[in-house]
């Protein structure tokens, strides 16, 4: 990695330098009215070569799945095969204007339809919409659908959504944004939903439950069918958060276990890029009963042709046009490259890798719920007096690893949430475990190494508290 600190582009500015030569104006010039013209814009004045070097140097400081192991729990930072990019770059996909009529975009609509069908099969759903552009966007669509379904039956009294305390923070946020109230359900000693608390919370005010399975502890909730039965009996619906679907593909179909509506993160399980904040895709799948409420448009077959249609009682659009189409091309490519047997192997490897790594890490770190995990597990980083998870995470950077997710889920103190993903080999897992054990040893013998970390990066330990309490959001104040 290029370790020299990089100046801001503004600091590289020198008066009069420029990287572009504008053509001579060939129309009559219209002056900006007096008083509206500004001379001092404060924009950087930099030549082309300096700009290229600046951004190339920045890119060399980048940490990515293409360069390093990235065990960021819950995020599924797995390898994104390059063939996905080849497919997405094909002229016919890349350059089709979204307003071209159906007759001239049959191939694009066919791809949307075939991806809908593949995801329907994988999830055990009756219908699918590819509109939502992110996981939380899919959650919001799902909660809107649940609310719309109750209202369509004349039941306006259902205002609460039950959410286990191990849930992603986006669940209560989606529910609040949809105008409903989140009610927290505690976990039991096994890390699953506390069934007694669930039963006590179920009444006529409950619109449904949002459940993540496997949950954020990396544990499969064996009561899933019973949970669904109880919620249905009380008149509610079951939402499935599919963030952890890479533990289940080809093995378990949520739609057949009583989940009424669910999102998948195509940018996690289906290997489309998301390290840089997207763009993502959070498709929603649902039961026959909810199909009419899906966001539209969705792709349909009309005779031998493909077309776009809006479901009869749709909650509306979640996104302009047809979702993030380029991402859908990548996900479809991935599904077709793996095929049905590959989908199953994907989940098997995700679970195998996590359990292998867990056994190695457990030699020095506590795992709060030690039973067999699914695709990830949650260890605890308080390995010596005065040493916290944050210190372990920062020290990992010195050894060239991206730290795992820390301090989440909230129900595990000093959480260190590790997801190796299905695409890593044994050597990488061994190497990572070896470093974690070495750090545990350092914590006992020379904890200062951890407190000072990272020391091998362009900037060292940042003042996170200062940044949160007194944020400076503008360059030059």
């Amino acid at each position: 990695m290029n370790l020299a600190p990089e100046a801001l582009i503004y600091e590289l500015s020198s008066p009069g330098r420029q990287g572009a030569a504008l053509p001579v104006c060939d129309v009559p010039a219209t002056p900006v009215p007096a008083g509206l013209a500004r001379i001092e814009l404060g924009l950087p004045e930099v030549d082309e070569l300096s700009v290229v070097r600046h951004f190339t140097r920045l890119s060399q400081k980048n940490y990515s799945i293409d360069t390093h192991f990235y065990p960021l729990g819950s995020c599924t930072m797995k390898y994104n095969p390059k063939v996905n990019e080849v497919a997405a770059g094909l002229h016919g996909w890349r350059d089709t204007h979204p307003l071209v009529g159906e007759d001239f975009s049959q191939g694009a609509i066919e791809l949307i339809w075939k991806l809908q069908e593949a995801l329907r099969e994988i999830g055990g759903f009756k219908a699918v919409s590819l509109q939502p552009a992110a996981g939380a966007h899919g959650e919001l669509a799902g909660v809107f659908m649940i609310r719309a379904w109750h209202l369509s039956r004349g039941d306006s009294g259902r205002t609460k959504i039950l959410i286990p305390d191990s849930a992603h923070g986006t669940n209560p946020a989606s529910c609040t944004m949809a105008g409903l109230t989140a009610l927290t359900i505690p976990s039991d000693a096994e890390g699953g939903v506390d069934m007694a608390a669930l039963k006590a919370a179920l009444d006529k005010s409950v619109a449904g439950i949002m459940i993540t399975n496997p949950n954020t502890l990396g544990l499969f909730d064996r009561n899933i069918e019973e949970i669904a039965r109880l919620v249905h009996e009380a008149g509610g619906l079951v939402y499935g958060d599919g963030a952890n679907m890479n533990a289940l593909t080809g093995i378990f179909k949520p739609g057949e276990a009583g989940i009424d509506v669910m999102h998948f993160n195509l940018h996690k399980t289906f290997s489309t890029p998301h390290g840089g904040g997207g763009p993502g895709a959070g498709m929603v799948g649902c039961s026959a009963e909810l199909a009419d409420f899906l966001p539209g448009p969705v792709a349909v077959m009309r005779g031998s042709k493909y077309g776009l249609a809006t479901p009869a009682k749709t909650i509306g659009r979640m996104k302009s046009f047809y979702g993030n189409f380029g991402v859908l091309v990548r996900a479809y490519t991935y599904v077709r490259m793996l095929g049905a047997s590959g989908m199953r192997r994907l989940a098997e490897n995700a679970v195998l890798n996590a359990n292998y790594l867990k056994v190695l890490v457990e030699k020095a770190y506590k795992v709060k719920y030690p039973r067999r995990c699914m695709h990830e597990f949650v260890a605890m980083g308080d390995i010596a007096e005065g040493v916290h998870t944050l210190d372990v995470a920062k020290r990992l950077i010195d050894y060239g690893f991206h730290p795992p997710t820390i301090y989440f889920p909230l129900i595990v103190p000093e959480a260190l949430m590790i997801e190796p993903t299905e695409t890593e080999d044994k050597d990488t897992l061994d190497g990572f475990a070896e470093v974690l054990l070495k750090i545990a040893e350092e914590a006992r013998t020379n904890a200062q190494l951890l407190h000072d970390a990272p020391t091998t990066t362009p900037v060292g330990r940042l003042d996170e508290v200062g940044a949160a309490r007194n944020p400076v959001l503008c360059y030059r104040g």
Partner: protein
Amino acid sequence: MNIDKNARYRTSHEYARKEGAEVVAGISDHAQDSLGDIVFVELPELGKSFKQGEAFGVVESVKAASDLYMPMSGKITAVNGDLQGDPSLVNKDCYGKGWMIRFSPTNAGEWDGLMDAAAYEKEAGKE
């Protein structure tokens, strides 16, 4: 772990302490320690009423944002405005200068359902 012997507690780590006819509430020392450096506290409007267990505000640290739950039902009579400028008061002195809300309870009987200091110490020790 520092525990205010005169206060009572919820399992979600809020404390309640009687002061005259009113009750002062905040989060326990155990809670502030687990959260780490607190960077923001959101408190309710004066005069607002909450039921026991309802969220009255939010506390945010560099690690997490957590809802704050009413230890008892009541009507808010004062909030600690100093926390706006200096949320670290919760870390430094959670039972004193880091108090969060003052309310007049609407169901005095709920006091008896809260954990006393000894019971809370045992409960928090389990984590």
